[in-house]
């Protein structure tokens, strides 16, 4: 673990160096690529538009976190593994101007979006953002980048979709639920990047190593 990636954990996947970052993203060194799953941008706005009060601020925080990850890793490419936007109702001007501002700050970075189930209904982000939107799967080196965690004979799948979480128990009844990375034999599942996304508790497949994000540190569980 090097200083620049403080708090992260480096692992080896099919011979490639991958750092699992506390920003809830993974950095693929060989391709200078930052992998990000399930931002669900516009989710809070979707709720508000439907009469459910959710405070604003989740999008801004997530974009700041994304900038931090890009800067810390000097990534030249960001690949979103689906569910970039939450729903059609959440396509607000506020959101798109925040995304545009982020884009301006990170002009040099190539951005690719592999579409997920939410994107089909929510639609692609505005073309001005210059995000390259493609359907899954996206083969990339030894990896298959996708939204749904499946297995693929053509390569090792890196995906999102399930928002993995894990419960940890401490002494005296302390409990915590943390987002986590599931690193399996043929598939890796990244935590959901968005702040207003929630976690799903489920049993990882056999042979899966679980890494939890505990605030500014990734720990192996």
């Amino acid at each position, binding site marked *: 673990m090097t200083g620049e990636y403080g708090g992260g954990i480096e692992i080896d996947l099919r011979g490639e160096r991958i750092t699992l970052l506390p920003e809830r993203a993974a950095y693929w060194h060989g391709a200078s690529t930052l992998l990000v799953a399930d931002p669900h941008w516009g*989710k*809070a*706005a*979707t*709720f*508000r*538009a*439907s*009469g*459910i*009060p*959710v*405070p*604003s*601020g*989740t999008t801004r925080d997530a974009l700041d976190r994304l900038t931090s990850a890009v800067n810390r890793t000097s990534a030249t490419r960001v690949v979103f593994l689906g569910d970039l936007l*939450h*729903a059609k*109702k959440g396509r*607000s001007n*506020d959101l798109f101007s925040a995304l545009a501002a982020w884009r301006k700050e990170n002009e040099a970075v190539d951005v690719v979006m592999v579409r997920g189930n*939410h994107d089909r*209904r929510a639609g692609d982000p505005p073309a001005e953002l210059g995000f390259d939107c493609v359907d899954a799967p996206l083969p990339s080196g030894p990896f298959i980048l996708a939204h749904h965690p499946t297995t693929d004979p053509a390569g090792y799948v890196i995906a999102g979709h399930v928002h993995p979480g894990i419960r940890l128990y401490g*002494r*005296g*009844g*302390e*409990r915590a*639920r943390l987002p986590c990375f599931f690193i399996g034999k043929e598939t890796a599942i990244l935590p959901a990047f968005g*702040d*207003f*996304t*929630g976690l799903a508790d489920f049993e990882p497949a056999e042979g899966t190593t679980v890494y939890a994000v505990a605030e500014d540190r990734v720990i192996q569980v």
Partner: protein
Amino acid sequence: MILSESTLGPAEKWFESRGWKPFEFQREVWLAYQAGESGLIHAATGTGKTLAAWWGPLLEYLDESNEIERTGARRRLRRSAAAPLRVLWITPLRALAGDTAEALSAPVAQLELPWTVETRTGDTTATSRSRQSKRLPTALVTTPESLSLLLSRQNASDQFADLRVVVVDEWHELMGTKRGVQTELALARLRGICPGLRTWGLSATIGNIGEARRTLLGRGSGTSRIVRGVEPKEIVVDSLIPPVIERFPWAGHLGTQMVPQVVEAIEEGETAIVFTNTRSQTEIWYQAILAQRPEWAGSIALHHGSLDRKTRDWVEEGLRTANLRCVVATSSLDLGVDFLPVDRVLQIGSPKGIARLTQRAGRSGHRPGAVSRVTCVPTHTLELLEVAAGRDGVEAGAIESRYPVTRPLDVLAQHIVTIAVGEGFVPSELLEEVRSTEAYADLPEDEWEWVLSFVSNGGEALKGYPEYSKVVTDTDGRWRVEDSTIARRHRMSIGTIVSDAHIAVQYLRGRRLGSVEESFIARLKQGDRFVFAGTPLEFVRVRDMVAWVRRAPNVTGAIPRWMGSRLPLSGELAAALRARLGEAAAGNFRGPEMEALRPIFDVQSRWSKIPGPDEFLIERVQTREGFHLYFFPFEGRLVHEGLAALFAWRISQIRPISFAMASNDYGFELLSPDEAPIEDALAAGLLDPSNLIDDIPASLNATEMARRQFREIARVAGLVFPGFPRSGKSARQLQASSGLFFDVFKRYDAGNMLLSQAHREVLERQLERTRLGHTLQRLSAARVVITNPKRTPPLAFPLLIDRTRDRVSSEKLSDRIKRMQRALERAAG
């Protein structure tokens, strides 16, 4: 209207026709009702409270219609449709609505009144609903939730225009809950619509009956009174003493050993009710009794709130006609209009409260002058102590109080939106109405303003949430919900105050069996077997909010566990229990239970001590596991959980140390890898009752508890929606867990008052802060006695087991406990 006894004639006559005679308290209620008074009637179940409340409005109608008849208008009235809504009858349980309507219908039919009596609950069919939406019946039996739904109609004022009285049944059940607050708010609205509306509450006898009246009637009900029903019969509390007294008892296993004695007791009478404290215990005991007496198949049944209505009807009918010899039941048979008296009442396990013990005893002895007898069956040897204490409490009339909920903002937010969906409101008027309830009498301006902005622009401190509006102001300055989708979703979420989502259990090809908590079903896999409604079942799948099952060949597998099943010991029973311990400490073993417990107390006093009335016992034991501290305040589990956390935190302020904890109704355990500085902690104010406000949140991992408490708040305040049937994609996009809301509010809108409500509820409801404070006052005045037993003494043993139980699987557990018991028994000689 003539205020005299003579107007009671029709009632007297009707009673006479049935061979009855009205009780004095019933006459008192009828006259008070005629005089325009409201009130609260309290008495045991099945003593004529229903008829006391019902004949008031009946007599009023007869009186009015006689006048009409004198003016020749009666014929016209008869020909027209039934009289418009006059009586609202609120019942806490859907299951009781049908029974109640039936009981109310009897005199109506006999008097040939042009009245309709109907129910409206979550179970009401679509046909009845649509008929009722055109015209409500003359008397409507409904639940608090369904009443709120009626208030969300845009013609609410018209529908309630002729309403004379609201009767709230089982008010003691509602009062301590948020549904009680929901009822208070609905009553305030109804009083706003119909000035002069009378409110009559029916309640079991509770310790704070005056407060119960104030809470029910609020501040706008005019003259009112408390009416006490018939005096209770003489009550006898006894118990089945286990043949072998284990000196190291633990909960949960003794039960089955007691089955032969229980069966003998059942055989003493023609009919019996076996009460248990939880629905899963009902299933277990039903199976156990049937295994002991297979020939009873068909004449023994079970009854609990999760069973299908039809099954319960059949059971109740069977008891009434004495076709059933025994029914195993939960408190579902505690409530209800119809008195089902039996020869024999048994109570499995401690009743945990004096009121419950009294109520259950009241189910037996139906001949006039007969005594009510309840026989307690310990599931844990030490429960004999609770029986002895319970008897003292019953004799002293130390009935528990129920404490009303004050100022829950989630319920208020829901109510405001309900009114906005209906006729809309002007804030200043609604505030006055809301403040007329006891729950919100002291609602501060800023909390009111916050709730208004929460339902209109998001409630964030300085600016509203973007894109958000739920309640909007129309051109007349009335606040309304105009978006029909939001209105529909709100209507669906009213009535989600009741805690967990339930899911129906139904045969693949056949009838519905009842319902269980979704969390139980969620753990099942296809092919898993479980026992429900006394029947072994195989789980097939869940679809459309129904758990489909088929009959399984034999009884194996899990018994469903329902939420809220562990009742804590009540404060009154706890006090009686400490008094009994005090006697034992002085060598006085009064009564068969205490006599039976003598061997346990003998070991307890040899190895440690029986705490006297002014002593606080702390035991310090070292085992391979580490250093155990056992504390015995005898105040009930909830208080002990709070104290355990508080003590752990206060001790760790002296020296960093971590503890594992366990609590039961008698005391709690703190286990640490190193020895805890208990003497230093005591000297530094471990028992100090001051600073609780600061120390409790600091000690409690309070955020985690508040986060859990927020589940209910988020549901009531309309943030999350439990189980939309067949919800489409767009509804799924609006699903988020309450925990997620909690985190997001905490981070982005820390001023959200629902968060502070969650913290307050943790302190006041879960931890009973007041009782915690009183306990500390008592303990700090007591003499602290620290003993250092070499092995775990009998009082501490159940705590040791409880903590162990959480960690190991159940099969291995019983073996392990047996080994521990054997070792301790050998040591005790």
